[in-house]
């Protein structure tokens, strides 16, 4: 990964970029994809801090961050994939696939929990590879390919679980050897003294940092933007389009697997119907965070902000104690607010430039 000359804007450490967006609206910072999402996050944060007292307690913040992290973990990979110009509708269900596979393999064969963890990773990566390979091989839009994967996995999750366990949920695996250490890695609570944080929050921030580094500092990052911007010209200048895209699908599969492991080791067992519907939430997080549905534009930090907005809104509504029957309506309205602020700031930014 030697550093190469990049046609992208000079990389900004994300946190510095955001604070500067607040202080001095330099054109460079305003050009970043996540600036709108950042403004929206600030607005939503102030809004809920004002109306929902538990929101700004340390414990409340910890819940919000946990909720954001379980979305953000997959959303960061999904946003990279979307920058690369593809969709993955199987991301939600494959979370359950990975968790079910790990639980059933380690329990049914009485293996160390880590064996299930590793084998399910291989299964997840194989699914990601298959998604990517089929898209590249057939030229069929990824929307359709992964829609098929979505349905197939949904059926397989239920069918295989039923076949193996006789029920629709896996057996509790918390007595297996290796469970404790795997739980420590994937689902432990970190006592920071002033607050207790789910470890997923740290993993989430770490993966966002890695993704940002890859996107902005490496050749692979340039390739991702190139294949999403214009696949044919990218290929013409020698970008290994097929490898990049298959890699991106496998990246999503990896993060789905990671979240699946969290669910398994947090709850000790998994129900076969889990995860359906979450694929759209990951896409929403990426889009709210500035990724374009057409590809070629977006950022990893943006996906984190999108996930954070989603986490704040879902928990904030509960913290505010609003009528639960209207929950989804509030959720939709708040997301619209976030997107509007996002758009407004972006327009303002481009005018300034």
């Amino acid at each position: 990964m030697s550093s190469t000359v990049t046609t992208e804007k000079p990389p900004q450490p994300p946190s510095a970029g955001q604070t500067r967006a607040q202080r001095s609206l330099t054109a460079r910072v305003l050009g970043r994809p996540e600036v709108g999402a950042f403004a929206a996050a600030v607005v939503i944060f102030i809004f809920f801090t004002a109306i929902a007292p538990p929101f700004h307690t340390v414990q409340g913040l910890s819940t919000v961050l946990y909720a954001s992290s379980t979305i953000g973990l997959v959303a960061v990979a999904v946003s990279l994939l979307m920058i690369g110009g593809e969709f993955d509708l199987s991301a939600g269900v494959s979370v359950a696939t990975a968790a079910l596979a790990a639980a059933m393999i380690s329990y049914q064969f009485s293996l160390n929990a880590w064996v299930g963890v590793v084998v399910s990773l291989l299964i997840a990566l194989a699914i990601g590879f298959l998604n990517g390979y089929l898209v590249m091989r057939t030229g069929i839009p990824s929307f359709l390919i992964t829609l098929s994967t979505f349905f197939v996995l949904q059926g397989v999750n239920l069918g295989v679980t039923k076949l193996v366990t006789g029920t629709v949920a896996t057996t509790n695996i918390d007595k297996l050897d290796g469970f404790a250490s795997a739980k420590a890695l994937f689902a432990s609570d970190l006592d920071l003294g002033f607050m207790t944080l789910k470890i997923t929050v740290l993993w989430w921030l770490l993966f966002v940092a890695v993704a940002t580094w890859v996107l902005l500092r490496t050749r692979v990052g340039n390739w991702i933007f190139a294949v999403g911007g214009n696949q044919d010209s990218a290929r013409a200048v020698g970008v290994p389009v097929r490898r990049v895209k298959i890699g991106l699908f496998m990246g999503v599969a990896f993060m789905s697997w990671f979240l699946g492991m969290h669910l398994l080791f947090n709850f000790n067992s998994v129900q076969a119907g889990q995860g359906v519907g979450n694929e759209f939430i990951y896409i929403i997080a990426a889009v709210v965070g500035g990724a374009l549905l057409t590809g070629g534009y977006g950022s990893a930090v943006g996906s984190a902000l999108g996930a954070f907005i989603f986490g704040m809104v879902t928990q904030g509504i509960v913290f505010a104690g609003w009528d639960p029957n209207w929950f989804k309506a509030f959720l939709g309205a708040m997301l619209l607010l976030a997107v509007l602020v996002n758009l407004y700031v972006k327009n303002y930014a481009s005018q300034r430039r």
Partner: protein
Amino acid sequence: MVRALAVVGALAVALAGCSSQGGANSANNNSGPAVGSAGGKQYTIAMVTHEAPGDSFWDKIRAGAQQAAKELNVNLKYSNNNDAGQQATLVQNAIDSKVDGLAVTLAYADQVGPAAQKAVEAKIPTVAFNSGISEYQKYGIGMYFGSDETLAGQSAGKKMTAGGKALCVIQEQGSVALEARCAGVKATYPNTENLQVTGTDIASVQQTIGAKLQQDPSITYVVTLGAPIALAALQAAQGASSKAKIVTFDLNADVANDIKAGTIEFSIDQQPYVQGYMAVQALWLNLTNGNDLGGGKPVLTGPSFVDKSNIDAIATYAANNTR
């Protein structure tokens, strides 16, 4: 595929990485109750439900129906669709294929009821089960096996005596049965508030319940309407260091363990296994002996309470997926 997996698995077991505890090998392999079979003619019974795939509750209904079918030498044809119109079509399919008996759930009574009525008119013995307690007679159906959701909620509310506020967690938006349970709880425990969560995303269930417990420290009871939701609520309460007691509908092996340990107060068991079992059993009795059960009134399978006093006997059944 399955065989290949099994071979791979067997090899893997032989290799390193075995767990010395807590796996399938160390669990007692109960082969379930002994299987008897009735002689004579084999009847075909169709069971048509509104099951949405992948719910452990339905799993038990099916397990009960299958067990009865096995014991009685009945050919059970199970089909399900969570869409009202499609479920009605499935009932029509059963009539067209001239089954000997029909067991149907009437969650969507207005759409599925008329189809079931056609079966009655075609002289196919028909029973309703699981849902439709107030509608089944309208369509000429003679027997009903299931629970009264409102009554179940009310009895749960009566058993909650600590005072303070109760939170009733609904994991499926717009479900009549779940709303009826919470309304029942509220009827006998007026200080009850509902909370909507997304049942297909268990992490968010935990997060949302946790947030609610942080927002309102006066909550002393969390009432969940499904076993997996109860376990998420338990984690949420621990995470929010709330002292709220957990009360739940339905059982599974983990909930049984928590009742034993005292971390879950009690469970309101609707006995889904019995619902499936009795539906098939009653049809068989009707076909072979002309019986009907319930004297024109619904036969209630619940609410049956499971708490520390009776959990020891019931835990084994829960582990066998029959309770």
